[in-house]
């Protein structure tokens, strides 16, 4: 099966430029002819399209083609990097010259023999964009628009978007890596505005994954997104001012797992820990969360948005237990940081494109199930917040401060959900907040496939998930003090 990806990648990336593995080996050998520990070549070609419906008509569509090669040379902690948007031998050679300039002349290394891994792909190699005709794509957008509008007369605006990417990558390295991946990624989104007596509120829902557009058609997902977006907007029309202050917070299942992504995920990326800049640095084996918390990053789940058959360094992805019953077990690593920390790579080496350097990144990050019934968790709170949908979050990995912003939340009073409150930002300190997780539900769910994670200017698709959980104290940033 992985043989098939390699054949597709050779044909798409190497053959048009009259390149083959021998020529790539020569380029790597030339880089290694200096004091270089590691070198890799990353070839990428991607085709992206998007369609947007607004005011009931499909107004815009775009099509984008991008391809290129990135060349990296590593010597100790030094990295040299150059890239070219032309996949031709002279461009590759000059990028290699630029990349190896970090190293002084010295002993020469040779590259190891190719080692092809046999990895079963986690998703179909077929072009996800071409399974539907343009007419069918437009019909999908229209159906979502109509579904949203017929839900409620208060719906005043509907925007529906459909986007798909088909990407082929091939990576070779002096350690013998020769690996390819063919990656589909699709996403649909519905956002609505509802109006009532001069008040306007928005709602938004969407999803997708490493599947083809057929996923939306088969499971009528686009209609679910439309109904969900309207439901959220209508809830927000009724929302009252959120409270301000520190109180118990119950987070719903699924997308609220952005808590884990911010509160612990980034802080467990290998680069920050090698540099000692993370609040979790040097804490392996220590209690960093309550005993109810087992946190996993897993890039090897079939068809998920954050999944990769192999990462962008050609390493097979896997399930990595980051925190087990509250004890810090390990970090997420790329090859560079794993080598410097004397650890093994974990399949978390990712890059936005050939024009960016890889670094340790999350894939699908989630909290494992606990024993509590979700209703029991809500019932345990006298006065607090129940937050079920979020915009996004941010973390300062050094101080541990993280925020995430609720877009749908409710008051809990005397163990009952009473009324919706306006969106508010929640703030906490990662390790402290995780130690205050006192109840974990048995309803673990992953998000619908909407996450984008940004780090040092690079965006990559990710997934998050969690069961319903209770944090005994978080600061809720409402206006009602």
């Amino acid at each position, binding site marked *: 099966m992985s043989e098939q990806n390699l054949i597709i990648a050779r044909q798409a990336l190497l053959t048009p430029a009259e390149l083959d593995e021998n020529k790539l080996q020569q380029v790597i050998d030339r880089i290694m002819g200096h004091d270089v520990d590691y070198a890799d070549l990353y070839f990428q070609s991607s085709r992206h399209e998007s369609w947007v419906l607004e005011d009931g*008509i499909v107004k815009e569509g775009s*099509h984008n083609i991008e391809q290129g090669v990135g060349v990296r040379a590593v010597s100790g902690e030094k990295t040299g990097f150059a*890239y070219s948007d032309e996949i031709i031998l002279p461009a590759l050679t000059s990028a290699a010259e630029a990349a190896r300039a970090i190293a002084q002349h010295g002993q020469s290394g040779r590259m190891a023999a190719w080692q092809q891994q046999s990895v079963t792909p986690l998703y179909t190699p077929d072009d996800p964009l071409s399974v539907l005709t343009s007419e069918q794509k437009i019909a999908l957008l229209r159906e979502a628009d109509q579904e949203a509008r017929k839900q409620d007369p208060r719906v005043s605006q509907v925007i529906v978007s459909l986007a798909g990417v088909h990407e082929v990558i091939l990576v070779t390295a002096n350690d013998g890596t020769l690996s390819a991946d063919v990656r589909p990624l699709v996403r649909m989104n519905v956002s609505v505005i509802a109006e009532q007596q001069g008040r306007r509120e928005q709602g938004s829902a969407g999803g997708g994954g490493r599947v083809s557009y057929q996923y939306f058609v088969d499971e009528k997902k686009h209609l679910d997104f439309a109904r969900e977006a309207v439901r959220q907007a209508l809830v927000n029309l009724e929302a009252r001012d959120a409270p301000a202050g520190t109180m118990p917070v119950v987070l719903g299942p699924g997308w609220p797992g952005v808590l884990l992504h911010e509160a612990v995920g980034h802080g467990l990326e290998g680069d920050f820990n090698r540099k000692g800049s993370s609040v979790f640095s040097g804490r392996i084996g220590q209690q960093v969360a309550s005993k109810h918390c087992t946190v996993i990053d897993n890039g090897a789940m079939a068809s998920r948005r954050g999944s990769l058959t192999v990462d962008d360094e050609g390493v097979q992805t896997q399930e990595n237990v980051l925190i087990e019953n509250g004890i810090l077990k390990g970090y997420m690593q790329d090859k560079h940081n794993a080598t410097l920390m004397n650890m093994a790579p974990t399949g978390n080496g990712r890059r936005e494109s050939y024009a960016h350097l890889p670094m340790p990144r999350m894939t699908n990050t989630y909290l494992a199930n606990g024993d509590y019934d979700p209703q029991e968790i809500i019932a345990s709170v006298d006065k607090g917040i129940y937050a079920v949908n979020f915009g996004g979050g941010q973390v300062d990995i050094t*101080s541990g401060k993280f925020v995430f912003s609720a877009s749908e939340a409710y008051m809990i009073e005397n163990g009952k959900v009473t009324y919706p409150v306006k969106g508010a930002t929640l*703030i906490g300190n990662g390790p402290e907040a995780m130690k205050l997780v006192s109840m974990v539900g048995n309803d673990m769910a992953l998000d619908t496939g909407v996450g984008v994670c940004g780090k040092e200017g690079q965006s990559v698709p990710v997934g998050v998930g969690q069961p319903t959980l209770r944090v005994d104290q978080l*600061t809720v*940033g409402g206006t009602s003090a």
Partner: protein
Amino acid sequence: MTTSTVPVQSAASQFDNSQLCEIVETLIRIAKQKGATDCDAGLSVEEGLSVTVRLGEVETIEHNRDKSLGITVYLGQRKGSASTTDFAQQALEETVQAAMDIAKYTEEDRYAGLVEAKYLAKTYPDLELYHPWALTPDEAIDMARQGEKAAMDYDKRITNSEGAYVTNHSGYRVYGNSHGFLGHYASSRHSKGCTVIASQDERMERDYWYSLARNADQLEDFISIGEKAGQRVIARLGARRIKTGKHPVVFHAEVARGLLGHFVRAVSGGPLYRNASFMVKKLGEQVFPQRINIEERPHLPGAIGSAPFDSEGVQNRKHALVSDGVLQSYVLDSYAARRLELEPTGNAGGVHNLFIQDDGLDLAGLLKQMNTGLLITEVMGQGVNIVTGDYSRGATGFWVENGEIQYPVEEFTLASNLATMYQQLVAVGNDVDTRSSLCTGSWLIEKMTVAGN
């Protein structure tokens, strides 16, 4: 067809501008040949070097070279777009074809189309935006080392570094459309910066400082950048939490810029014609106190935000967005202008050098005026809702009493509504930060809800 445009002066650059212009003209010609009623095309190329040093050692040396082009075609009132990084003749043909294929399936939008020719820039000035910096990796490394050392030497509690960097970038932009407009210019952008970590009582904090300019001669000295980063991180140590309550707030110029940015977003065409902004139908109304004036100055020579014409080729000029607190102009491209039955404002692609008039006080003066409250130096998270104006973000800063900073504070949120915050803008400082297209000093806001412990 109705205008022909000649730049007043086009400075020579490292880029082959006649070849780049020819590519854009070729795209337009191919689109017309394939039957497009109208079209516009743009391209950009960019080259640069970025070097980072950490704890005195080279960490990365990156050579950047990027290019891309895009075309939008109109078949009557239908629209399609495509882009590519490949500038070969065959790729140009395929890209135009991809846009045409899309335009066959999109639906008639009566507002779609190129900007009316009368709004296009007939001539445009050389804004002195291009100052290439002949920087070798070795020179960059030396500079970054000095900056990082200055930061690390600032105080012995500074124990770690995320590194110091130097970048240089030069680029060339060309935009043309089937009205016959062809505009092009070179620009550059260089920066230096440094981020360090300090620890005390087993708690770490980090902070940074950076300088950004079109001309490397105008960059701040790296030693002073390092010292500022050091000063800032030390000031954060020993932060306390604060009690929930309502307080006056000074937003430091760096974060006040964000508040000005939310204003720009709220008065921009897209959110307005979708009724998705709290500034809908506010033209001609008092949205700030009477003292406040906000002006766009797109043609300031050498400024970071300057552009000789907007991204649709529209003539842009100095104009007022807010006068005496009254909203005078939205921020519109031609599509939004048609939707709103207004004229385009030269803001396709955004605003270029927005200035808010200051009240003559420096930051210390603003703190004196506030007397007791918070000075905010960092905000976190996405809690800004342009539809409703609701604002709720995480923040870090200092507690101020009797106009003097008392101690650092952290892990709290600030909440209000942007419409209220703009009305409660008591004073704007003269400590203007010009490192972006949004130029403002610090803001004193009458009252916000602070959630702490």
